[in-house]
């Protein structure tokens, strides 16, 4: 280790290595903070009387079976980042119902809430008795019906 330039280069290497690490950490944390979806305004929601829920904090959103041919009543599906309901395979929840389309409806989180969306089904998806046209926000106790099959949303 008698070459000063070699020593300098080694330190340059180490310094750059850590500089890069610091850059990735700082830049990616900003990414985490900055990417909050803009379309949800928690204050507005609170004003409407709906306390915002945080899906990440101890809340277990799930879909409870109320009436279905395929599943036992009372069994439930965890909503791990979203589920598709439909009559056949790619669907996560198989709805064995003559009124169900192959890809019928979908539940997916947007920001801190879960939303129910009809995927252009033939016979429609019903949330608490009314037909779902645009994605609708789910609150605990909501009833989701496809034909004669019914689920309850819980958190």
């Amino acid at each position: 280790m008698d070459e000063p330039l070699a020593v300098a280069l080694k330190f340059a290497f180490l310094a750059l290595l850590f500089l890069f690490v610091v850059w990735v950490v700082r830049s990616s944390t900003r990414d985490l903070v900055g990417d909050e979806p803009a379309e949800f305004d928690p204050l507005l929601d609170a004003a409407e009387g709906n306390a915002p829920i945080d899906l990440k904090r101890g809340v277990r959103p799930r879909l409870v079976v109320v009436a279905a041919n395929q599943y036992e009543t009372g069994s439930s599906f965890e909503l791990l980042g979203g589920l598709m309901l439909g009559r056949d395979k790619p669907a996560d929840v198989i709805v064995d119902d003559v009124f169900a389309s192959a890809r019928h409806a979908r539940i997916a989180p947007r920001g801190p809430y879960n939303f129910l969306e009809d995927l252009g089904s033939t016979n429609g998806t019903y949330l608490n008795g009314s037909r779902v046209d645009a994605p609708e926000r789910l609150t605990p106790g909501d009833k989701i019906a496809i034909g004669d099959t019914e689920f309850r949303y819980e958190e």
Partner: protein
Amino acid sequence: MLSARNRELFGLLPVALTVAAGFAAVLIAAEAEVNDLTLTYGLAFLVLCLLGHIFIRLRLPNADPYIFPLTALLAGIGIVTVYRIDPELAREQAQWFVLALVVFAATVVVVRDLSVLERYRYTIAAGAFVLLLLPRLTGGIVNGAYLQVNLGPLSFQPTELAKLAVVVFVAAYLAETREILVTQERRFLGVSFPPPGYFGPMIAIWAVAMVMLVFIRDLGSAVMFFGGFLALLYVATGRLSYVVLGLGMFVLGFAFFSETVGHVQSRVDIWQHPLDPALYDMAGGSYQIAQGMFTMSDGGVLGSGFGQSLLSVGGTQILPAAQTDSIYALFTGETGLVGAIGLLLIYLLFIQRGMKTAIIARDAFSKLLAVGLTAVFALQVFVIVGGVTTVIPLTGVTLPFVSYGGSSVVANFILVALLLIISNKARSEEMTGGVV
């Protein structure tokens, strides 16, 4: 704020500088002149990075901006360290990187939609099994394990590819059955068990791990595979009891086979007493681990400098497998504790980005695939770094992107391609804000 792709491009700048500093230090230490040929190495590396970046810009515009620079830095550190050992090997490694980038691009083009992987899951699983058994049939033994397949002049280590295939299969299988595993679980003595009909595939995965242990004699890969499987099972079902159950099965199998299979037993002895003179002198003994420990301690806090670690005495190499298994020891010797921590931080950040990708992925298969790929990657780093530093028995797996070895580089670039595909899809959906 910079867009994702511009951030990626910006991130490649410190990567290029770091690699350049490393190369220059190695060259000065080797007292080689910084001539045209050596400069082309640095330039070629930069050009490869830029080509990769441009490809991602075109095909995966919204993918995670940090994964590729992190990969490039690891690859750069690898090629500098390999170059320091043997310039000829570094030239070969550079060729492998070119091939790996081509495979990376091909993966992105072919697997445009991840459902392709989901659909062919059983074919992929069968492929993995064949890949794992190939070396035993055509076999080359490397360090007492059947790891290598020789096809004429080419040789490759199929476990690297099989690792990806197993993750794809398990992710697809669990994406399909996770609800059933949870909703139809059986409780016995207060512990949840999976429904009996679904035990089969789990036993099969366990059997694969055991087969690897006994027939292929590769403890490292067995830990990697089974660990990745348990991570997936936990994420898919949220049942800690399944993980404990699986871990118990693995430990039982390991305990049984370590008694009966000599290879495993000697590895454990070596790990417990690496500095025992008898084991040190024994053929296939602890020589490699002990030499690695000496190299690392020689580095101290700040390292002895590039090209300064004692690698050979009088023409005989004293650090065995310096370019593969022991590359972590050599890097630590030359850049010290500080360099080693830096390297591990890079791996941790890579793993963090992988998990972040899994978190934002919307559908179950993408989520599980991202978790599984990240888990096997993390376990691979743990198995080899833990092995060299005697946290666990040493088994020969490569240090991803850093170790010399074509199959490893190619397989890990496929892994990066899959992660970027998932990330691109998830981040695109997030941006449109829609339920797509």
